């Protein structure tokens, strides 16, 4: 499914989803439905690959650090959870569960539904991701625009340098440096009385916790830098276009030229990049969550892999895949509204 430039829109299109005509007789509504349906085989493959990969991994859910469980106990546990059956059978059992939206129970946290565990951890990840996103959009775009408008000035080089440095440093390194600086450093300098907490996120949906400062910066540094660089290069390209010259020739004020003509064009690729960026924030947060002990989905996922907690691994993977697919779909649809030259095609 691609988004391409196509035939001109028929005049008189109403802004109701199912009535917007696209290329080749597809309407927006049909396109969305097709995309949603397409998600199903994709998800299926995702589950297949993950399932069989996980079962290749050495070790099992019953391995314990230090004192091992006795083989008899392990045997019983396997029978209880159906792990003694052949893999393909386990797979089918799992799939039949998924269809009924039953994702099984966690093996490492017995008695807890996978869906519950995910629901518990979701608010933390979402808060972190959303907060980071809300901050990074204006900062990233703002920096990029300023750098472009004042090309080759000190501001430009500083912004560009910062952005490149941030984009090239692994985020956990950034996080660790922040910890060293703000936690260890402050601690030492103030004799132990003042330091930024390095871990945890006491309340799920509250964006105003100081514990979030370092994780947000850590998580957001790279995407912000990326968006800034993208905005800058896109704006520079747009500034070279003929229609900007036309705008000046009409005698428009500078502010209008920039906002209405330059930015309206140069931000198009940036906006489309924001979709995958948001997806990255949500799904790529596990490093940050581990570093700062935030009990979000990412950390759950990492722990589940280490512990070979198969249902939890699968549940999380499915969640991630669905999220990414939905975000991509939203971005593709949004693109039609942003750029009038574009039509959706299959």
């Amino acid at each position: 499914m691609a988004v391409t430039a196509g035939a001109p829109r028929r005049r008189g299109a109403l802004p109701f989803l199912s009535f917007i005509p696209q290329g080749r007789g597809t309407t927006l509504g049909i396109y969305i439905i097709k995309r949603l349906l397409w998600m199903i085989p994709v998800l299926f493959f995702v589950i297949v690959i993950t399932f069989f990969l996980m079962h290749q991994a050495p070790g099992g859910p019953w391995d314990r650090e230090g004192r091992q469980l006795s083989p008899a106990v392990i045997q019983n546990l396997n029978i209880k959870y159906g792990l003694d059956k052949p893999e393909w059978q386990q797979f089918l059992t799992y799939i039949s569960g998924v269809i009924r939206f039953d994702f099984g129970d966690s093996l490492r946290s017995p008695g807890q539904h996978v869906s519950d565990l995910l629901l518990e951890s979701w608010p933390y990840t979402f808060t972190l991701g959303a907060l980071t996103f809300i901050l990074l959009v204006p900062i990233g775009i703002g920096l990029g625009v300023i750098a472009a408008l004042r090309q080759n000035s000190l501001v430009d080089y500083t912004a560009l340098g910062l952005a490149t440095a941030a984009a090239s440093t692994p985020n956990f390194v950034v996080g660790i440096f922040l910890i060293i600086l703000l936690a260890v450093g402050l601690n030492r300098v103030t004799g132990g009385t003042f330091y930024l907490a390095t871990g945890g996120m006491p309340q799920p949906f509250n964006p105003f916790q100081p514990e979030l400062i370092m994780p947000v910066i850590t998580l957001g540094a790279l995407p912000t830098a990326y968006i800034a660089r993208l905005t800058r290069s896109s704006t520079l390209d747009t500034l070279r276009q003929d229609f900007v010259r036309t705008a000046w020739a009409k005698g428009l004020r500078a502010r209008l030229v920039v906002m209405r003509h330059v930015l309206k064009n140069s931000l198009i690729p940036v906006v489309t990049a924001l979709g995958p960026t948001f997806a990255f924030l949500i799904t790529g947060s596990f490093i940050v969550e581990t570093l700062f002990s935030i009990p979000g989905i990412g950390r759950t996922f990492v722990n589940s892999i280490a512990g070979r907690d198969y249902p939890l691994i699968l549940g999380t993977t499915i969640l991630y895949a669905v999220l990414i697919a939905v975000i991509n779909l939203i971005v593709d649809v949004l693109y039609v509204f942003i750029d009038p030259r574009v039509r959706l095609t299959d």
Partner: protein
Amino acid sequence: MATAIGVAQQVDWDVAEQIGLWQDAWMRFRRNRLAVAGLVFIILMIVLAIGARLPTTPGGLWRILHLTGDPFQQDVTNTFAGPSLQHLLGTDVLGRDLLSRIFYGASISLSIGIIVQFLILVIGGSIGMAAGYFGGWIDNLLMRFTDIMYAFPDLLLVLVFVAAFGPSFWSIFIALGLVYWVGLARLVRGQVLSIKEKEFIEAARMTGTAPLKLIIKHLLPNSLGPVIVTLTFGIPAAIFTEAALSFLGIGIRPPEPSWGVMIEDGYAGIFADPQLVIFPGIAVALTMLSFTFVGDGLRDALDPRMRR
């Protein structure tokens, strides 16, 4: 007949043009100071890395020259030491020499980062070429497959692969190759498609000559630039992935001193002795930064639009 001759001339002219492009590109690259600095740093790192592994005694060349210690030798009487003549950067939590471990880590990061690009080139390149050349349902199938790959968050997929194969150097290597080929495949496919559309290919097809050789002959000079740039940018991504996985405990395991492992080790003692974390952190950051600068420089140097 005339068309065939015209075709051959067209290709030769393009190829000749490309060679001039390389010399031009090198000159432009040289003017980009950041890129040159990055290149220098990388070369330095490579030298240090090689010296840390060869000869194959622990510590390699640098140990023999008494510049560093042994990356694996523990000395519990001398943990968390500060810089000294024997240990230029001090020792870590188990008394091991930090500097030698950093050099050793360089060898791990660089070899994974750089060598995996070849794997990516093979996988991504062949899939991209197949999709572009054959077109039709093969193209469709392969592109759907890449869509599925795209549906996974890459890091997670690598994680899953690495966990499946067991944490080790080679499993990371293979996992990276299996996940990150997608970008290159799309690039190559696009290149093949655009070459296929050029008129001289049509001409060749009409005179009956198989365009495959023509395409390849023309593909190489044209796409070498973007491919190199893509692969160069892939190196810091690979280095980052390995470090991240090792940091999380799912990648390279101790006592192998990958930078990620060192950071993980040092994290516990961060309040007491932050330099155990700072040095490997800086090492990773600078290495990734250097590759990014080089990548930027290459991209600007090879950009045909800026040819003047």
